[in-house]
Each structure stands twice: as C-alpha cells, then as structure tokens.
C-alpha cells in the first residue's frame, strides 16, 4: 500500500487479535443493564394480551396511580412516524404507548415504574385493561383479501407498499422453453442477540440534557428520533452506546421503550432503567424475515436462465419501524432477487402487507436471505428438471468478471469479482464428486445424503444516492472520522458508527496503522457516543469498515501531512525530504517520534514552525466512495447434509464457504463474521420460527419453544477467501458483516431437496423442521400412490 509502513504487519490484512477481548474475558465489559445509579427506577410494561382490539378502559390499582402511566399521562410524547418518499407508500404512526387501539399482542399499553423490575412487574400485573376485541389478520396473503380486517382503519386495504416492474417476455419466448414455477415461504423469526434491548436514561440538569445509554447500533439516529418525538432540541440529547451485546438489525431502530424512558426520566426526576427480557424480545420486538414468493423461471433446456417473473409478499406486521420503515424489505427484495445472474427479462411485483403482528425489522441481510432462498432453490429445481448439476447452471449464468463493472437487470452496479470462480471453488471444497458417489450407497440407519449450494451478491456500504432513492428518513452522506494525536504520541480515533461484536476497536486501529504505521495498541478507538463522535447514520448495511474505515484513512493522511511539516522543521530539513513510516516522521537526517510531535504541539508550541497547520494535530475528514452505489461482496456456500427419512431430521455434516469481500482488513474477524452469519442462517433453515396463531397470539415466547442454533447444530465451517478489491472504495474494501447469513437457507434447502429427489419430494418453506420434511415426503408418496392408482 502507498501509505506508510505497518508495524510488525499489523495494518490491513493482518490477523490482529482483538483489543476488545480482555475486558469481556475478565467479565468487565460494560453493558447498558450494568448501569446502576442511586434513586434509579425500573420500568415494566403492561402489554396487549390480544392482537387486535380497541382499548375500552385501563384501570390502575388503587394506591399505585402515581406509578402507572398510559398514553394519556404522557402529553407531548409523539408517535413514531418513519417517513418514506417511495411512491404510494402509506405512512402510519407507531405510538410509544397504545392510543385507543392495539395492533399486536405485546404492544406496550402502559408502563409501571418502581424501585426494582420485580416490583414494577407486580404493579403491571394489577393493571386491568378491558379490550373490545377485533378480528385479527395474521397471515400476509390473507391480509390482501378484500374482506380482511383492516390493521390501520384509515387505509382502504392492508397493503402498505407495492413495487412493480414489467418486462417483455416475448423476446425470450422462443428460446426459453423450460418454465419452472415454485412457491416459497420464509417464515417469521426473531433476531435474538444474546443481550436484548436495554436502556438507561437520566436527565442532566447541568447540561439541560437527556443522557441515554442504550443498546444500539445507531446512536446518532436514536438521538434524532428522541429529539423529534420527545420534542427536544438536538443539543438536549446525548446518546451513548456502551458495550452492546449483538444487534443484527433490531438495534438499528428506535424502540417505544426508549422514548418512554426518555420521557419519564425528566418527568419523574430520577434515572430510569429498562431491560428487555427474552420474552419481550421474542414476542414484541425484533421480528423479521417472513416473505412469500411465487416465482417463475424461464430457461433453455441447456440451462441458460433468460427470464425471471416473481410475485413477492412481505409481512410487515403492524407498525413501521423508525427510521428504516417497513418499505425497505419489499424494495430490497425487488432489487436483489436476480442475484449475481445475467437475465434478459425480469418482471417483479412486491406487495408489503400489514398484519396484527409486531412490526417487521431489518435483520442481517435484509430481504436478501429471502430472495436468495427463492432464487437459488429455483435454480436447483431447474437443474433437477433438465438433468444438469446446479452449479453448472450458476456458473453459466453469472455475470462474468470480464463484464465488470456491470449494471444488473435490477439496476445494481456490480463493481468487481469472479462470481463463477467462487462456485467452482466451493464445489471443489465440498467434494461434489465424492458426495455423488456416496449417494448411491444406502446407509444402515436410513439416512440419505444431500449436497446443495447457494450463491449471492450483496450490495454493501451503499450510500447517499441509494438511500435517497428509497426516500427514507435517514440518508447516509459523507462518513466522518476524527483523529487526534495525544501529547505522548498516541492516537485517539473517533467514529460515529458503533461496534457491537465486529471488532472495530481493532480493525479501525489497523486502518490507522496502515496509514501512520502506529501500533494498533497505541490507538484508542471511541465509538457509539453522540457527544464524542462525528455524526453517522451508524452500523448497518455492512457499511462500517468501508465508510468509517475509509474516513479513518483519509483523516490519518491529513494528520500525516501536518505531522510531516512539524517533523521536517524539527529535523531542519525540507518538507519534501520527510515521510511517515513506522509511527515516526523520518528523513535522511534522522527521525522524530509521534511523541515528540505531540510534545511540541501541546507543551512547547514555541518550537513549532511558522508554516505549521493551525488546525493542529486533530483532524476530521469525511469520506464517501464514488460512485456510492455500493461495494458488492459475494460468496458461494456449499453443504452436505444427512436426512433421516423416518423422522425428517436434518443434520449438517459439512459446510464450506468461499467468500470475496474485496481487500480483507482482518481475516480473523472476516471469518468470525462469516461463521456467525452462517450459523444464523442455519437457524433460519432448520430451527427458528416465530409462530402466531390465527388470533395473533405468539406461540414462541421462550427459548424452549423458539429454537436457537447451539454448538451441536453448527458445523466446523471450512472457508476460503478470494480478494477482488472494489475499484470504488478506499483500499478496495467491501462490507461483509451480513453476508454469511444470506445463502445458508438456500444451500441447506437445496441439499435437502437433493437428498429428497430420489423420493420426488421437495421442501419449500423454512424452517425445514422434521415435521415439514416429513410432510414433504408423505406428500410425494401420496402423489406417487395417486399416480399408480
């Protein structure tokens, strides 16, 4: 790289061990729920026990009136309204506490405050809410019917948002003689970071400021929301995310509980804490996925995919989440369905419906696990139909490296990469030929073997132009970083994104090391505090390493120039004779340490040169890739599974990943993100499901009935990397935090269907539980018997 040198290879590309580990290993991490102040109160919420109803009355128990608050008791608290300029998008309000009507079971109706959570829950249990129960709509397809109950009375139907693009399929009709039609469903899930949501609010009279510590990925966006809906000036709000125990998307949103805590701390003049429990997480927040696909693939008998026609339905639940809205999922499904493939015709309609369930939130991969699942499963269905290996179809139809950069049929601007190569490598790694040979041999225990894969391309770190076209309330602009040399030659680095497991305290320090040659151990990374860091829309969309990393590099380069001026003066040589290397300013005449530069600027400014930059040794720089249409990471996953025909139980035996996220900053962290993502994908594929009955009652409210992947469900992944730098980003880095989770349901689903093809059965709905696998097998047998009879 052009900038400086690295200290002992700790810059870009180094497997630097994480700086954040020591405190967590010692049990000294500081999470929001660890905060405790004298006089603090805890909140517990009275939540709707029914999914759809008018509230007739709320009766507070005698003697506790002062400790219970309903929406009427909180004047001035505005409902959340997530704006969208998408054409035809229907706006709706999300009240922090239900006002008149409840729209999902678990919706906050009242809040109770006491010295402990247990006491607050005792009070909550005594609150009597009388409901006038309305018929509920809980299925996204049923929600579209003309006689469906309306979730929002002021709308004429339950469709919040539609997209539609048409194309001329006549142009491919002669060639595309094979038509594959399928119906897929990816069911609702919950995100389940191990730390749920938590918030600690305190009003600081000295600053006239709401201080809020909250478990969030997006502190600056939370500040925006708090100011808007609590009707405060922005200067009156400071949001700090301390250690955050995982996010995966649900912590990129403002929650009703944050608003209520912010309101009550001022009203009650005491610190307020709320810690979401797992049941609250599972049944009231963090719901995600839930797509339905009616997909038609037009192809040639030799496996060329020419046209794709799809009707997508998204179940958005009752409310639109701030600031990302409930329109994002459908819009992204529309734009990502064709994946890495080069189609000649693409037609798509997405309809996003509201139902009496919690609002849908953007979860790791946002829409892409669903579209990848539908697309990749359909490819394998085509493969079975025409008798080809599915990977050959993939390789044949992927946008080739020679065409890069390439505008896809869904208007995605692919930047770089050899997509087909990732397929080839994954096929080699999984040992396809060997698996095929073993499939003919029956096992003693009745298990059958299947192999399957999934490929995707993921737009990451997309910027201003993309978000402004979606018309949402938050549009990322120039990402900024602030660097400051300390008097002893260390570096403070301040970024507005937030790290909650991604290891940015390490990887961002590696960026500074790359430019300045400073040891990452001497770099203090501060993030997640609106009072200390530059504005940022935060951590989501696999953007932080590209955006905040790029800004860090830019800021460090300017700092380097300024230090060179001082260093040249101290060495009595020309500016052009010095450079930065190994954490020092060096010239032919000698070297000046960063500590010496710091000493002169801060403590002995009489020694500064006349041409010193008066901005000093503190620099804020902004960065945005050009074009800002995104850096496209891609990968191919392949897996081998065994399936017990009698029980329907699926086990992942081997799982390989070939990924390309451009220039890798820290391979250890990239692999960790990939393995974690893939394991969440295994959850989607085999285990996790947020069930609701027809009344809208949640059926999975504990970890006993919501199945999370454990160490026995996850394989020892094998991974290989490709590195196709993006031509548009600093150092060619692409985002990769989400990718691991995208193709896993497809890869596993395809492996199951590969195993089942001898029976003629197919699964088409996640999770592929033993019950669903058995049902597919029985349906196939019934069909065969029907045909025989």
């Amino acid at each position: 790289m052009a900038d400086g040198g690295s200290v002992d290879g700790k810059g870009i590309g180094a497997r630097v061990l994480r700086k954040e580990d020591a405190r967590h290993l010692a049990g000294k991490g500081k999470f929001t729920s660890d905060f405790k102040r004298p006089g603090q109160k805890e909140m517990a919420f009275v939540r709707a026990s029914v999914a759809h109803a008018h509230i007739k009355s709320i009766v507070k128990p005698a003697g506790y009136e002062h400790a219970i608050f309903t929406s009427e008791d909180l004047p001035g608290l505005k409902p959340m309204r997530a704006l969208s300029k998408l054409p035809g998008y229907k706006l709706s309000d999300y009240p922090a506490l239900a006002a008149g009507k409840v729209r999902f079971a678990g919706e906050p109706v009242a809040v109770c405050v006491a010295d402990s959570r247990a006491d607050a829950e005792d009070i909550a249990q005594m609150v009597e809410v009388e409901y006038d129960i309305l018929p509920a709509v809980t299925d996204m397809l049923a929600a579209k019917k003309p006689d469906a109950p309306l979730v929002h009375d002021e709308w004429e139907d339950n469709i919040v948002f539609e997209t539609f693009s048409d194309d001329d399929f006549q142009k491919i009709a002669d060639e595309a003689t094979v038509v594959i039609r399928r119906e897929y469903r990816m069911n609702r899930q919950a995100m389940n970071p191990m730390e749920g949501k938590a918030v600690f609010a305190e009003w600081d009279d000295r600053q006239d400021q709401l201080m809020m510590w909250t478990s969030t990925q997006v502190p600056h966006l939370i500040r925006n929301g708090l100011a808007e809906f609590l009707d405060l000036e922005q200067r009156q709000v400071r949001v700090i995310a301390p250690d955050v125990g995982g996010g995966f998307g649900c912590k990129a949103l403002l929650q009703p509980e944050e608003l209520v805590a912010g309101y009550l701390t001022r009203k009650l003049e005491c610190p307020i804490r709320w810690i979401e429990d797992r049941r609250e997480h599972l049944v009231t927040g963090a719901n995600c996925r839930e797509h339905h696909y009616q997909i038609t693939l037009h192809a040639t008998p030799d496996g060329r995919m020419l046209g794709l026609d799809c009707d997508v339905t998204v179940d958005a639940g009752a409310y639109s989440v701030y600031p990302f809205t409930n329109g994002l999922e459908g819009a992204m499904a529309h734009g990502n369905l064709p994946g890495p493939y080069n189609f000649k015709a693409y037609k798509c309609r997405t309809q996003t419906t509201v139902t009496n369930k919690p609002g849908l939130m953007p979860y790791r991969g946002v829409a892409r696990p669903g579209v990848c699942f539908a697309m990749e499963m359909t490819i394998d269905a085509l493969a079975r139909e025409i008798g080809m290996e599915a990977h050959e179809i993939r390789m044949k139809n992927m946008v080739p490296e020679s065409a890069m950069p390439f505008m896809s049929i869904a208007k995605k601007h692919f930047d770089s990469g050899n997509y087909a190569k990732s397929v080839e490598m994954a096929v080699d790694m999984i040992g396809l030929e060997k698996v095929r040979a073993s499939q003919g041999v029956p096992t003693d225990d009745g298990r059958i073997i299947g192999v399957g894969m999934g490929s995707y391309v993921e737009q990451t770190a997309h910027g201003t132009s993309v978000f402004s076209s979606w018309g949402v309330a938050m549009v990322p602009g120039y990402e900024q970083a602030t660097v400051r040399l300390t008097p002893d030659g260390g570096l403070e680095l301040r970024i507005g994104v937030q790290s909650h497991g991604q290891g940015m305290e390490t990887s961002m320090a590696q960026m500074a090391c790359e430019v300045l040659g400073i040891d990452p151990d001497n770099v203090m990374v501060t993030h997640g505090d609106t009072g200390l860091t530059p504005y940022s829309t935060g951590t989501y969309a696999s953007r932080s390493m590209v955006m905040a990393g790029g800004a860090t590099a830019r800021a460090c380069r300017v700092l380097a120039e300024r230090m060179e001026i001082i260093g040249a003066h101290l060495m009595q040589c020309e500016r052009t004779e010095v450079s930065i290397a190994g954490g020092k300013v060096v010239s032919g005449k000698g070297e000046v340490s960063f500590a010496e530069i710091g000493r002169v600027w801060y403590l002995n400014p009489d020694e500064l040169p006349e041409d010193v930059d008066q901005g000093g040794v503190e620099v804020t720089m902004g960065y945005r890739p050009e074009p800002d249409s995104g850096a496209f990471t891609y990968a191919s996953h392949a897996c081998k599974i065994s399936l017990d025909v009698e029980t329907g139980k699926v086990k992942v035996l081997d799982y390989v990943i070939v990924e390309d996220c451009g220039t890798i900053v820290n391979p250890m962290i990239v692999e960790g993100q990939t393995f974690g993502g893939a394991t969440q994908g295994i959850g989607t594929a085999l285990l996790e499901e947020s069930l609701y009955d027809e009344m809208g009652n949640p059926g999975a409210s504990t970890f006993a009935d919501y199945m999370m992947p454990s160490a026995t469900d996850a394989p020892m992944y094998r991974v290989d990397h490709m590195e196709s730098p993006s031509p548009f980003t600093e150092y060619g880095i692409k985002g990769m935090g989400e990718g691991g989770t995208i193709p896993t349901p497809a890869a596993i689903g395809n492996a199951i269907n590969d195993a089942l093809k001898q029976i003629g059965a197919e699964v088409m709905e996640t999770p592929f539980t033993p019950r669903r696998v058995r049902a597919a097998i029985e349906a196939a047998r019934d069909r065969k018997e029907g045909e025989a009879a």
Partner: protein
Amino acid sequence: MTELSININGEHIKADVEPRLSLADFIRDRQRLTGTHLGCEHGVCGACTVLMNGEPVRSCITFAAVADGSEITTIEGFDQDEPMAQLRQAFHENHALQCGYCTPGMLVAARDIVTRLPDADEDRVRLELAGNLCRCTGYVGIVKAILSVLEQRRI
C-alpha cells in the same frame, strides 16, 4: 425476607433477601458483580452460568435463598485459576468472542468441560456446550479454544 450467608469469590457475605430474588439478580444488582450476564432468564442460554460449590449452575433460575451456605464463583473470581487463564488466552487467540455477552457464562461452562472431561473430543465439547448459546461466533472459535486447552492440559 430470608437471611443469606454466602461466599462469593472468597468473600463471606451476609444479606437479607426476598425469597423470590434470583441468585443472578443478587450477584448483579446487590453485589454489583456485573460480569454475570442475563440472556434469557429461563435457564436456556447459559449466559448467567456461575460455579456453585464447584459446579456450574444457571444463576437466573437459582434462587439466592437456595444458595445459602454455598460457595459461588463468578467470572470475576477466577483470577488465580489456571484453567481459566488458559481458556481466556485460548478464547482470545481463537476469536471465540465477538460481542462478549455470552462470554462469561461460556468461560465458566468451558472451565467445567476442561477440568471434568480431560479426554473430551470435538463432538463431546459441542454436546457439553449445547446449554450455552452464542449468537455471534457460530461456535467455531469457542470449540477450537476449548479443544486447544484440553490438548494443552493433556501434555
């Protein structure tokens, strides 16, 4: 109120507690040892795992009153403990933690595995770990770290 006499990390503590108070809440809110984390509060995720008389327990579904007379070791109480030192280093080197929330419970469970099952192989380690959920790592680094400490301790 129930009178409680308990030893936490070598310190004798006497306290009056409500009968319904969980050991986890006692450790976290009363003793301010916040390294013990709460992930589910119904005994599935394992984030709250501590040692009670040398054996791992879920402090979220153990009443503080039940722990009367016992010796409790939380993540803060292992500073002089050799297997824990080995595990901490191995977790660091194998990227066995990301957000760090499950880590204290995971380490306590891991210490139990490496001390109780010196011959455990990968399958056994995974089985033993099934009561501790991690949402970030996919368990790759955790399993590798534990296997490496088992190996280290066999030499």
